[in-house]
């Protein structure tokens, strides 16, 4: 069996409903933006396309210096997001497996809480 025949087997299942929602969203947004672009009246003056800054001319570049805290919280989020992914399958079978699953999750969470406690102790959870 070559590649073309492999593609024709029925092993692939359909994701067409999902792509449908994607298409509907595309049609909605694209259609409305196109409609507005062609139908809406346009006008122009020198001040119109300046970024807003309380009515005075903009100063300097848009680039600002941000608190590194933003990045720290993003990384912490990623860590706990990974944790969520592993806890979801656990949650489904918790009822069936009983004691074993309970002990395993207690250990899992204990180690994670250590990390949270460390961040707390080092004042990483405080916004400066």
């Amino acid at each position, binding site marked *: 069996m*070559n590649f073309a025949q492999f593609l024709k087997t029925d092993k692939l*299942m359909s994701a067409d409903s999902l792509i449908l929602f994607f298409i509907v969203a595309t049609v909605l947004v694209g259609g409305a933006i196109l409609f507005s672009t062609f139908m809406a009246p346009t006008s122009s003056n020198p001040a119109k396309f300046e970024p807003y800054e309380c009515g005075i001319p903009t100063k300097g570049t848009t680039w600002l210096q941000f608190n590194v805290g*933003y990045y720290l919280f993003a*990384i912490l989020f990623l860590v706990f997001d990974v944790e969520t992914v592993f806890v979801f*399958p656990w949650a489904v079978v918790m009822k069936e*497996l009983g004691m074993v699953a309970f002990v395993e999750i207690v250990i899992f*969470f204990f*180690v994670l809480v250590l*990390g949270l406690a460390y961040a707390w102790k080092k004042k990483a959870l405080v916004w400066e």
Partner: protein
Amino acid sequence: MEAILGNQVMFILFSAMIVMFSILTVTSRRILRAATFLLFVLLSTAGLYFMLNYQFLAAVQITLYAGGIVVLIIFSILLTSHIDHKFDRVPAQKLIMGVIAAGSGIALSLTTLLTYNFVPANQEPISVDMNTIGKSLLNYGDHGFVLPFEVISVLLLAAIVAAVVIAKRKKI
């Protein structure tokens, strides 16, 4: 027959999106645009997983890669990069070398793919539901993954500590 045709259309659609957005990702000269195209590559890959009916992996792909890693990348771009910033054009010599390397890669994979004799699987497709995944994740016998499951928490702990240490380091 028509269902198969529909699947083929979907497969070609997703693959075309992956190829197109991958090329855009590496050729775009604005860094945030590259990150956005990367997002679309990852989402199309998730679409392929949905086609294979492996929904858990697809959702993991969306949460971790699209909703996690890409958000982190965009955050760091917002922190460090300026909207007017553009990468320099790639010098012609590098460009040619790159195209040759990519072209030979494509040729190699295509010849392998087209000459390979695929063996059709006789087994029924296994439906991977959450129960199976959860049980093998928590099982401590053979085919069980409870040790990796617990080690992951240690890995995550290390990640938290590292992030805090780096971010809270005294200014030099």
